[in-house]
């Protein structure tokens, strides 16, 4: 006899999502750099910005109010509407 148990999970099945195609070039890209407010994250992002600008990209900087919480919805919206690519910097 088949027995059954009750599912303890949130019963979410995330549908499989394909990542966006890789950008062929940095030229014309608007790259958002998101500082999550951890110490020394800015050092990493400053260097990235130099490299990205050298490569021809436009860079916009963003910062989360605190690293302990997810980015506020307004900030996510701002990045999504202004940028074509985003790089999030962890630190420590």
């Amino acid at each position, binding site marked *: 006899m088949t027995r059954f148990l009750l599912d*303890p999970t949130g019963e979410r099945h995330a549908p499989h999502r394909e990542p966006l195609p890789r950008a062929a070039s940095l030229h014309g890209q608007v790259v958002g750099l998101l500082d999550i407010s951890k110490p020394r994250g800015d050092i990493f992002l400053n260097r990235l910005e130099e490299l990205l600008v050298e490569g021809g990209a436009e860079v916009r900087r963003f910062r989360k109010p605190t690293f302990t919480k997810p980015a506020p919805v307004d900030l996510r919206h701002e990045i999504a509407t202004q940028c074509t690519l985003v790089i999030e910097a962890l630190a420590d």
Partner: protein
Amino acid sequence: MVAPLLPAVAATTSLTVITQDDPTFPGTVSARHDDDLSLSWHHDIDTVPTVMVVRDGIEVDRTVGWSRDEWRRLTGVTDLGADLPVMRPGCGSMSVDPDLADRLAATFGGRALRSRHIEVAEAEDEIEALFDLGYTDGLPVVPPTPERVMRMLTGTTRDPQEVVAIVPPDLVEVTVEKVAVNAVMAGCLPEYLPWVLAAVEAACTDEFNIHGVLATTMPVGPVVICNGPGTRAIGMNGAGNALGQGNRANLTIGRALQLVVRNVGGGRPGEVDRATHGNPGKVSFCFPELEHGSPFTSLAVSRGFAPTDDTITLFAGEGPRCVVDQKARSADDLATTFAACLRTLHNPKLVLAFDAVLVIGPEHARVFADDGWDRERVLAELHARLQLPGTELVHGAGGIAEGVPAHLADATLPKFRPDGILLVHAGGGAGLFSTIIGGWANGSTGSQPVTRKVTT
């Protein structure tokens, strides 16, 4: 005893007789056999015989057992049972037989359950299947059968489909039923469920910030501190080994909370949980304050609740560490030891960023009580001893890079914010020891301790 009376009742009114175990009973009038006990279960019959008066399909009156006056009143037969005793209590209904009740509840009441079914094949081991599905914290779980979940739900009056909270990181609505499923898996008894529900509610507040507590690389998890008479009613242990193994309520309430975060919220190590080391308390860390015999007002009372309230307080904490002072015989001396140990929390040069729970053992508490120090006095004396000179704290001071910015060299900085030490009384009666549980990033940018009332 009542079977011979039934023809007289049938002669005066429309009588339906329902029999549970013996289809030939009562013999004197025809009867319907409740072979699957569905009629008995749905009509909440707990004693046989039960007489129900039904008008227009609705029950308007009932009596249980044999009461001559009640039977006469309900049937309208004024001389019914003249030669029988005045009263007999009846017997237990088969529908409440402990061997059958859970199965009946799952069969007939289980339609109220909405959780998806997981099929387990006949030859498959249920506990191994739950490991394979990734639903455990690394220890075996109790398989959540519909029978067990129905039994767990008897621990609360809340509707199984009531939404308790939205659980990070996946931000999934968790119902009372889903909490009950995970409480079964954790090994809880039904009477623990209200405590688990309160803990889930507290964890999922913006103040407590379980998402951050989970995602941090620091070794913290929710520490559940319980207060109130209910802690004793459900058999929690706040005395010897309060923070250790051996007590079912302590262990399973904390574990159930973590299983909800894991299974419903999707918070798993290596995924959103990025802890560098973690700590064993992330399986379960839950204990009650030892209120009996404490010289201090309780943690819950200090946070605005009544001594009669049952509460849980959640603290984002690391593993406990011991404070030893077997020599101090004055409150003053002991406070100085506590302050010296508290100063080292996370780093002796880091201030204001972290809270701490100070679990004072009964023998240490007695030292304070003998000198007349209450909770407020102990905390005031600790804070006074933890005002630190900036020169010792700035970057590089003492050969340690970690520290506060150089411009604070002239400042005096407190190790803790004013409400940053949570004092709790717990532990065994022997041992001049206390315990510190260090916190995580505090305040609105991290995690605030959250206290919630436990309601059934």
